[in-house]
Structure formats: C-alpha cells, structure tokens
C-alpha cells in the first residue's frame, strides 16, 4: 500500500513540475514608453502566445494601482480567458496620470491556472516617461540657523523638446515667506530660462517657505513649478 502511495506522490510531483513550467511567452515583460507632454491616457500593450502544448487559463489579471486598468484582448475576438496551444492575446495597461511628470513604473499581475504560489507568476512592468518641460534646477534651497544672510541662486528652465516657449506669468510667496526671504526673478531668455535669486532676511529660527511660479502653459501639468526654502537647525 505504501509503495503505491509513494508512486502516486512521485507521479503527482512530476505532473506539478511540468504544469508549473507551462507559461505564456511574452516578447517582453518590461515596456518603456515615452509619451507626448500633453498625454492624459497611456496605452501599453503586451502581446503573448501560448507556446506550450497545454491549455492555459488566465484566472485573473489586475493592476494593483488605481491609476492603471488592465484589459485583455484577443486577435480571434473570442471572449475567453482560456488559451489553447498556439493561441495569442494582448494585455493592455491603460494608465491615467493626472498632473504627474517624470518616469514611473507600474505593474500588471496575471495569475494562471498553472500558478501554485501565493503571488501570480506573470508580472508585466510599464515604465512610462512623461517629459518634464519646465523645472527648477533644484527642489529646495537651504540655510542653517545663524548662517550669513547670503543669497542663493537657482534657475527655471524650459526643456528644448518644448515646441513652444513657456512664460512665467505670476509668482508668489507662501507660508509668510516674505518676512523671512526676499527673492528676485530675472529673465535670461523669454519663455526658456529664468534666474531666481533668494536672500534670507533672517536665519535666527527654523523656517520653511515656498515660492510658486505660474506659467502660461496650456497643459495642466506644466502650469506651476515651485521651490521650497528652509532655514534649518545647524547639524549637531
């Protein structure tokens, strides 16, 4: 009886191992996409094929981020998640980014009936870059307490890939910054580059402030850039 049981267990283990290796073939599991600056919705398709000699069923597919939705389409137009040997499909990541700019990775997870582990075996990564058309040369300026009241300079530059100039049309202090910091903005090249000089008026206590610069860009994600200003405790 125990010999028979052992045989059954061995056959089961062998079958499991074969089943575990059955997986879809993807051209790539990482897709890098650079979008237009004004993009609102990005579509990232991942094509795959069942190159095994077994049927594979997609149990579920999901994007664990609310900014992305995953969709499944098949060239044969069948409404089925069961893929016979040789059949093809496409998983499409649909990403919405609000005012985001820069580079970000988002994943789609696919679980098939061959998966045995807790985590789905197929993880697809969408690496999306939304161009940064206007940016400050640094995100913050810092002084230490009791530092001399010396000015610091940063620039605001419009990227060469911006087809049109982006002009600074308004700027303002925040958090009562006018009591602690003074700033002067100069145009280096209209719609392309600005130089900003910030001078602290006192460095006697820790302070935080910002200056926001509003632009005439028609694209919401480039309508504002900001810099934070700090007077910090001297390092102990």
């Amino acid at each position: 009886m125990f010999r028979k049981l052992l045989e059954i267990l061995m056959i089961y283990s062998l079958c499991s191992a074969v089943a575990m290796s059955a997986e879809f073939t993807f051209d790539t599991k990482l897709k890098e996409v650079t979008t237009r600056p004004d993009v609102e919705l990005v579509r990232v398709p991942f094509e795959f094929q069942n190159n095994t000699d077994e049927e594979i069923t997609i149990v579920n597919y999901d994007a664990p981020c609310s900014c992305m939705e995953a969709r499944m389409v098949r060239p044969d137009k069948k409404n089925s998640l069961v893929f016979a040997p040789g059949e093809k499909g496409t998983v499409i990541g649909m990403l919405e980014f609000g005012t985001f700019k820069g580079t970000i990775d988002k994943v789609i997870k696919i679980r098939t009936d061959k998966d045995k582990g807790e985590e789905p075996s197929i993880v697809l990564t969408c690496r999306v870059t939304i161009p940064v058309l206007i940016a400050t040369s640094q995100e913050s300026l810092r002084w230490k307490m009791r530092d001399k009241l010396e000015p610091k300079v940063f620039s605001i530059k419009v990227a060469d890939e911006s087809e049109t100039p982006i002009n600074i049309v308004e700027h303002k202090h925040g958090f009562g910054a006018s009591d602690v910091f003074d700033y002067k903005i100069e145009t280096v090249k209209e719609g392309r580059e600005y130089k900003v000089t910030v001078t602290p008026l006192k460095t006697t206590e820790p302070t935080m402030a910002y200056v926001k610069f509003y632009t005439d860009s028609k694209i919401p994600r480039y309508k504002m850039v900001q810099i934070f200003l700090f007077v910090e405790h001297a390092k102990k």
Partner: protein
Amino acid sequence: MSWIKQSLVFAGIAVLCALGTYLVHGEYDRRVPCVQSELEKYEVCLTTVLDEWGGNVVWVDARADEEKKVKIESALEISEASADEDLGKGEVAMTLFNAKGKGKKIVVFCQTDSCGSSKYVRDKIIGIFFSEENQDTLLYLHGGWKAIESDGRLLGK
C-alpha cells in the same frame, strides 16, 4: 483494506490534523505577513510601527483618491498623480518640516506592496525636505493599506 476504508482513514487523519492546528494556533491569521529580514531598505513592518514605536509617527497616505474609502484621519494625503501640488499645501508641508526637525518618523503607505506609489512619494519628500542626512526617519510600509486594514488597529483613528 478496501480503497474506501483507506480514503476514510486519510480523511480522518486530515480532519484531526486540522483540528489540532486550530487548537494550537487559533483562528487563521489574516494579517499581512512581514518578515524583518526580507524587508527592503527603508521598508518597515506595521507591527514595528505600532508595537515598538507605539504608532508615534506621521502617516502619509499615498493612495489615489478613489482608493480612500476608509482613511486614517490624521494621515497627510500625498497622491502620486498630484504629489507636487499636495506637497505645496500648507498643512502637509509644515507637518513634514516639523516632523523632520524633531526627528519624528514618517511612514508612507499606498494600497498594496506592488502599487509603487509609496516609494515614489517617499522619494519626492526626500527630494524636497531631506538633504543627505536623516533619511532613515522616512520609511514606507510593507503591505500598504492591506496591512493596515487586516490589522484593524488604525482604522477610525
């Protein structure tokens, strides 16, 4: 012994094992498992935050708006899609500045481990509020909201 009897014996043993496990370990633990040795740099377990630090941290909720059906009331809201705008809000920026000044820990969470938003928001906070020092007071939560929800202690706070 017929195959029916053999099956019944195996089934009986399985039931006894299951019962024994229940009696020894209690109900199934639905909390998100977190193993210290498997954490990435700057990643932290919820049990560390609540049990070792007494929950005395600034929470940063990096979930998207549509995911925030239930919230931690005291948490700052900085979503990935509008991080620049959110960080420029007075209360958010001032709370982060004060926390950094006092060396208070800041813990960012998003919906799940794989959403990636908490790491992104952490990097944004680092870029603005932290220079090269003190970065180890800014962490992100292993398991994200799933860990908070399954633990339950922070809900309604």
